[in-house]
């Protein structure tokens, strides 16, 4: 059951990710990205980490994907024109790929059998966030509030 589901989800996620990278129409690429995120959330569901999966859907579909499509909508210019390969992206892509590969190869989890841990409940995550990680939490909250106010200041109308 789990293996079958894993293969189906992996195929969907990978093809959506490929589509996001290769599709000519920007809007389709952005929506494929959203589909890929749903696939990753499904992986989290499969291993029983519901909270992470739901948070992923919440943030990436509800906010980031909408932000991306709005950006495309508001900056739409010569959508279909082919500009050829943009070589400046190659070093960035290569370095990100190298960094990810390095960190994956350096983790122990592929080599040893993971110890059996109890499924993490939402409550435990909440308690950890409010006790051990309370300061990072507050800092993130402050940062987001500042960003919100900054966005408001950008669009505020000056009275003539």
């Amino acid at each position, binding site marked *: *059951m789990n293996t*079958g589901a894993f293969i189906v989800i992996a195929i969907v996620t990978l093809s959506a990710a490929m589509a996001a990278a290769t599709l000519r*129409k920007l*809007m*389709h690429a952005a*929506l494929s990205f*959203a589909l890929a995120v749903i696939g990753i959330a499904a992986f989290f569901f499969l291993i029983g980490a*519901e*909270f992470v999966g*739901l*948070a992923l*859907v*919440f943030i990436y*579909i*509800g*906010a980031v*994907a*909408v932000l991306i*499509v709005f950006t495309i*909508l508001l900056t739409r210019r010569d959508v279909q024109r082919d500009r050829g390969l943009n070589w400046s992206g190659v070093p960035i892509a290569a370095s990100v790929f190298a960094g990810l590969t390095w960190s994956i190869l350096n983790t122990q989890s592929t080599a040893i059998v993971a110890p059996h841990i109890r499924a993490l*409940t*939402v*409550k435990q995550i909440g308690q950890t966030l409010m006790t051990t990680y309370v300061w990072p939490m507050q800092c993130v909250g402050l940062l987001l509030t500042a960003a919100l106010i900054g966005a408001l200041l950008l669009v505020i109308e000056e009275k003539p």
Partner: protein
Amino acid sequence: MSKSIDQIFVSAKHWLLSWLDGSPSWLIQITSSLISIFALLAVFLTLFALMSVLERKILARIQNRYGPNRVGPFGLFQPVADGIKMLIKEDIVPARADKSLHFLAPILIAAAAILALGVIPYGRNMAPFAIDGGILFFFAVGSTTELAVFMAGWGSNNKFSMLGAMRAIAQMFSYELPLLVTVLPVVMVVGSLSPDRIVAAQAEYTYGFAPRWFVFTPWGAAAFLLFFVSGLVESNRTPFDVPEGESEIVAGHMTEYSGFKYATFFMAEYIGMFAISGLGVTLFLGGWHAPARALEFVPSYLWFLGKLSVLLLVYVWVRGTLPRMRIDQIMNLAWKFMLPMAFTCVIAAAVWHYAGRGLRGWLWSLIVIASVYIVLSIVLDTRRKFAPRVYRFAE
């Protein structure tokens, strides 16, 4: 006896599954899910059909006319006629439309609405999809609706569609915040995101007769009202139906849809309405619990259905009585009134909890809510309610 009637659907499902005894577990798991899905769809699509004709009849009564009364007894078969009409209508796709997005949008929007139904407990042991973070699941699924609306607006390649989609997304975003924050006090007080636990927390009776539904506490009542109004917005119902305001932008993001795709949008809107009302019942109105101990012999799902029907009736009632709001009024309401009040509900729930959850906590939280409400109504009063309209962009 009453217990077996109460559990009749659960027993039926177990009986159906008992045919599969000895088969591999994945088969049983999938069959179990399919049974739940079919039951959900059967119930809620019937309810949708019934609701569409009842809404028209009630609206007609409010407007002092008869409403549909030709097809079948009292016009009850009207949805059948509507369904056949919608099915055999021509499906028009605009030549310049983005065809794949135009096709996918109604599917996605209906799927999101139906998925949200899955986490609501409809009766004792009757939650189709009982997960730890059920409430979170509800809103995570709901947040994909915005993307679907955007796909509909963009894919149609029509200015009315795009404007309608922008309006819809703007108001859905603005009201998602109060909606989420009004759910917080309940989650805080119960200490769980699971709908089952939230319903279980409202089971007992204070002094032996008053049910412990959260709507009977001051913070619960205020949060329920805010939740209900946000629910109206999320399901694009009057008075918040500017995204499909006929007099300005035809039908908003649904302008370029015809035939069954339009019907799918319509269905998704109603299913979304059922889902948000069902969540409201679960969070604030005690879920499937009876309002008195003497009435507990009535099956739990009937109580749920009864409470859901009352909420839906209020939806229709509001649609029949209130005019449509302007988009700036909607935004002002969301950010200047609803959001501060929603945060006040959170604080009032905390006050209620720390003052001992009894009469003292009840009064203290009432004081908190009332004082913030009074301050807000003084601060927000612009004193020019009936002033002539100022046109900024049209002289």
